[in-house]
């Protein structure tokens, strides 16, 4: 199954990687160094993050730098805001219903 944003963020290491990437783009080697992890472990996390489009690779010379994809996160936050609004609307409707039932 394809990983989604929630699953991607549920992991503390991936959250830390994302936080770091909001500051600067990094190569997998630098990530491995910063988190004291094997290249294989880093690759696994990168794969999950890239699958749900939270990070984007960019080739520069012989190296790949990974960037944080803020747009994807915004898209998701926007949807959550809409969900919040839907609940608010429903509850206001319930206020009306309750006032007629009392």
């Amino acid at each position, binding site marked *: 199954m394809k990983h989604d944003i929630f699953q991607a963020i*549920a992991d503390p290491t991936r959250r830390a990687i994302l936080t770091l990437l909001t500051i600067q783009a990094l190569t997998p080697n630098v990530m491995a160094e910063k988190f004291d992890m094997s290249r294989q472990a880093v690759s696994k996390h990168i794969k999950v993050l890239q699958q749900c489009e939270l990070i984007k690779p960019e080739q520069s010379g012989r190296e790949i730098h990974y960037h944080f994809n803020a747009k994807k996160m915004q898209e998701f936050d926007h949807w959550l805001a809409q969900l919040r609004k839907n609940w608010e609307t429903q509850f206001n409707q319930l206020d009306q219903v309750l006032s007629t039932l009392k």
Partner: protein
Amino acid sequence: MNNDLLFDFTVDKAAQTIFITREFNAGLSLVWDAFTKKEILDKWAAPAPMRCETKYLDFKVGGRRFYAMISPGGQERFVLQEYTSITPKTNFKLYNSFADKDENPELPGSAWDHNFNEENGITKVHITIFNESLERMQNLHEGFKIGYTLMLTNLDNLLATLTQQS
């Protein structure tokens, strides 16, 4: 509409959970009924301009509610909820999933926990929604969203015109 009543909506992305708290200016029994009885649910439990139509609701542990969310254009999206735990007028839990018209659930869904308590005639409801996959839920909503957003834009325009005229 009571603007002085508490409404809180928070999302813990790391925990894949949504927390909702809302106060209602009504007694516990009435609010409990509003969340558990088909006739009352259908009056409020879909954000306008959508509406919901409960096909059946069997409020007991293992029982189900099957309902349709209906867009103004008549498009239907079905939801299946199974009650997993009930403590009358205190708490109930359910498992929520989208479904096809023949009640086949589209998994994974989400686990909902509702808590009710009353103080001085005000009833507070806490809802916790744990999503195995919120993004999946987002995708399932997508079809609806396009028509819905378009219509809201229409309404915005209409309101703007009416305001200008007055």
